[in-house]
């Protein structure tokens, strides 16, 4: 058991190191979060100034901008990885056949790798984003409850994102080119992901429907929990994400088992 854990820990470490290999790539990406936050801070500060109580849909301007900063930091790591394309490519190139005979679980190997690549980027983005948010809008109060609650939702959100992306990539076994599906998935994230317009600004009915979806808004919900913790909302989101995590775990296993029947190994 410990040997198995060590094996996956090493896979995590390899991907972590690979992700940090190009320092210019990691550091170079972060100042642009600053620029984005700076520009959006001007929009939301103007909107806050137009509101009678200085608040926007029950949130202070600071909370809105910290949420945008966090959700940008989280989502940019997802976009940077191009994970579904990796799986798609592995299927199309036939490398999947080689991966299957290696002494590790194919799903776990990619899950650990996904997290390993994401962690350094998230840390770098959040550190720089935090400094920028402090500079542009000032601090906000993040309680220990909000911090640990947000962290738990973030972990669940990343895990669900991985499972959804993994399923999308595996679809290459049936439809050959998954770029259309990946496009839909990424674009949904842009609309309801809260990187431009936080979900709180959407009409309530639409917002309620979106909350039950297993994609697009999950990282936003984690970011919002960090900045505006409410026990009832947190429990609600935890139950939805918990449900989707378990459901997608079964779905992924099922799709993977069905999918590998289509894999044929040719020698040479």
């Amino acid at each position, binding site marked *: 058991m410990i040997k198995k854990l060590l094996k996956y820990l090493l896979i995590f470490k390899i991907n972590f190191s690979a992700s940090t*290999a*190009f*320092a*210019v*790539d*990691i550091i*170079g*990406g972060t100042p*642009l*979060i600053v*620029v*984005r936050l*700076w*520009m*959006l801070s*001007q*929009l939301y500060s*103007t*909107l806050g100034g*137009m509101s009678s109580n200085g608040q926007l849909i029950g949130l202070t301007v600071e909370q809105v901008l910290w949420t945008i900063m966090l959700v940008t930091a989280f989502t*940019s790591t997802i*976009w*940077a990885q191009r994970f579904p394309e990796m799986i798609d490519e592995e299927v199309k190139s036939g490398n999947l056949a080689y991966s299957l005979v290696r002494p590790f679980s194919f799903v776990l190997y990619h899950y650990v790798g996904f997290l390993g690549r994401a962690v350094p980027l998230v840390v770098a983005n959040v550190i720089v984003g935090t400094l920028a948010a402090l500079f542009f809008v000032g601090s906000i109060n993040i309680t220990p409850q909000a911090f640990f609650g947000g962290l738990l939702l973030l972990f669940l959100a990343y895990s669900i994102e991985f499972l959804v992306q993994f399923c999308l990539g595996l679809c290459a076994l049936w*439809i*050959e*080119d*998954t*770029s*259309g*599906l990946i*496009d*839909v998935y990424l*674009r*949904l994230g*842009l*609309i*309801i992901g809260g990187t*431009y*317009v936080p979900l709180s*600004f*959407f*009409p309530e009915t639409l917002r309620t429907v979106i909350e039950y979806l297993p994609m697009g808004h999950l990282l936003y919900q984690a970011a919002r929990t960090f900045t505006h913790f409410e026990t009832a909302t947190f429990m609600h989101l935890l139950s939805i994400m918990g449900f989707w995590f378990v459901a997608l775990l079964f779905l992924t296993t099922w799709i993977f088992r069905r999918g590998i029947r289509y894999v044929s190994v040719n020698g040479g």
Partner: protein
Amino acid sequence: MSSWSALRKYSRFILFSFGRNMASAMEYRSSFVIQIVSSIFFCLGFFAGWYFLIGAQQSINGWTIADTARVFAIGWGAIDGSSLFFYGIQDLSVMINSGKLDNFLNYPLHPLVLIAMTKCRPSSLGSIPVCFLFLFVAGDVTLLTLVMYIVYSLLGMIVWMNLLIIAQVGAFWTGGFDRLIKQIMFTMINSIYIPYTVFSPVARLLTKTVLPSFFIATLPAQLLGRFELEGFLLLVAFAIGSTVLSLTLFNAGLKRYESGNLIGNS
């Protein structure tokens, strides 16, 4: 070779390559259709998000939802127009980093054109018609504004393409540039949609210099709403200037390029 015959040669190559790229994209029919349909819904959904934000206020410092619709129409027309024909240019930094330019240096055409024509983005076939819908949302649609809309979108497209090249040729001098390029693209696209009237003087200067998104959509949208000769000349001058700069930088970078010896392998 006269400039006329060169233009004919390039036009024929672009049309031929575009046809082949589209045929290649249509090979996977389900994916092709999904991309186009999702693109339509994305454009409408994304605009709806801004509508919820801006439309609720009636006006933000004089900026209305009609202004946003105009910016969306031109911004998407320019960016997705370039993606539809010249999507390959977005891989320029990857090709430089991995030494894959070799194949493009042996033909009697400029390598940038060859690289740009390596692939197309069929989803733009869905977003471009929606741009015309946004134009109707903005109002004042006449034959003249339609013609001017196409002219401004083409100018915006030229500027966008040049900025993509300028941002990516940095890979000739420093490796591992890919993520930075994506971030620059996102930031530039981001600033297009934010109402220009909320920007401070420093931010306005930034959108005209370091991240010149002003010339991709904001200025053309302003001109579409109200024509000013001075603004139009500025836009044309920027399009020409950015073209000269991007070509100069690319040619200078090409001298530093180290072959990946991949001829015949790609």
